[in-house]
């Protein structure tokens, strides 16, 4: 499933790199706020769901080759985070939904795809 389809289905608001949504394939997902956990256990092509907003999340997503980051609970990414995401080409989306709700919906969408 491409990231644009997923973002539209969930009503996610794109804060960075919307031009990449159409061409980015989502292969799976991972949820977590501990960066070492995400580094060790997520995979390339995952959509990463987190409540963290600081710029180190872009470093992790870039190193792991994630499809993009979804920031939950109505939190806003720092300006530095968006600047770095722009430089590294990492899509960042936000939602008011909880992590539990977003993960459930993404899981269902990917299972049906």
């Amino acid at each position, binding site marked *: 499933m491409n990231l644009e389809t997923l973002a539209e289905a969930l009503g996610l608001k794109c804060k960075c790199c919307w031009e990449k949504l159409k061409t980015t394939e989502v292969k799976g997902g991972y949820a977590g706020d501990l*960066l070492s956990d995400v580094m060790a256990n997520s995979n390339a092509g995952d959509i990463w769901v987190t409540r963290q907003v600081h710029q180190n999340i872009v470093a992790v997503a870039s190193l792991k080759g994630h499809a993009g980051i979804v920031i939950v609970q109505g939190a806003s990414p720092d300006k530095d985070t968006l600047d770095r995401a722009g430089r590294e080409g990492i899509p960042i989306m936000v939602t008011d939904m909880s992590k539990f709700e977003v993960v459930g919906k993404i899981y269902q969408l990917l299972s049906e795809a």
Partner: protein
Amino acid sequence: MSDEDFIKSLEGVYHIQGRDFVDAGIVSSEVKKSLQGKGIPESIIRRVAVITFEAEINIISYAQQGTIQLFIEPDAVIIEANDIGPGIADIDLALQEGYSTADDSIRELGFGAGMGLNNIKKFSDVFELTSDVGQGTHLKSIVKLSG
């Protein structure tokens, strides 16, 4: 391998400043880029990226400053991280999953969960950690290309 061969295999030396969380991940990103395009399998690059990231975060979190050296040998990638800092008094304890001396400012960023050294060990084929308390910590991680 002779000393000369070893020096020849040095691919890069990266300096890291303690407490500089803004630049966290930049060295790992450089290391990943320098491995790409050299015929090294993607699975190996991903493991080296995790090891380098955790080593980088440890230096930033706990040391005054440090360096990461990257060596590419015919059969392995070697990461060496050396820092000037407080060192680790009890390495076995530091290697226990979940053990951490991180303060709140580190934990708020999503670091300091006591997983970093374990991640390095898990993703390495050879893992060596030594420390001189009050002086610094030395890490050597080998990822075999055949792994």
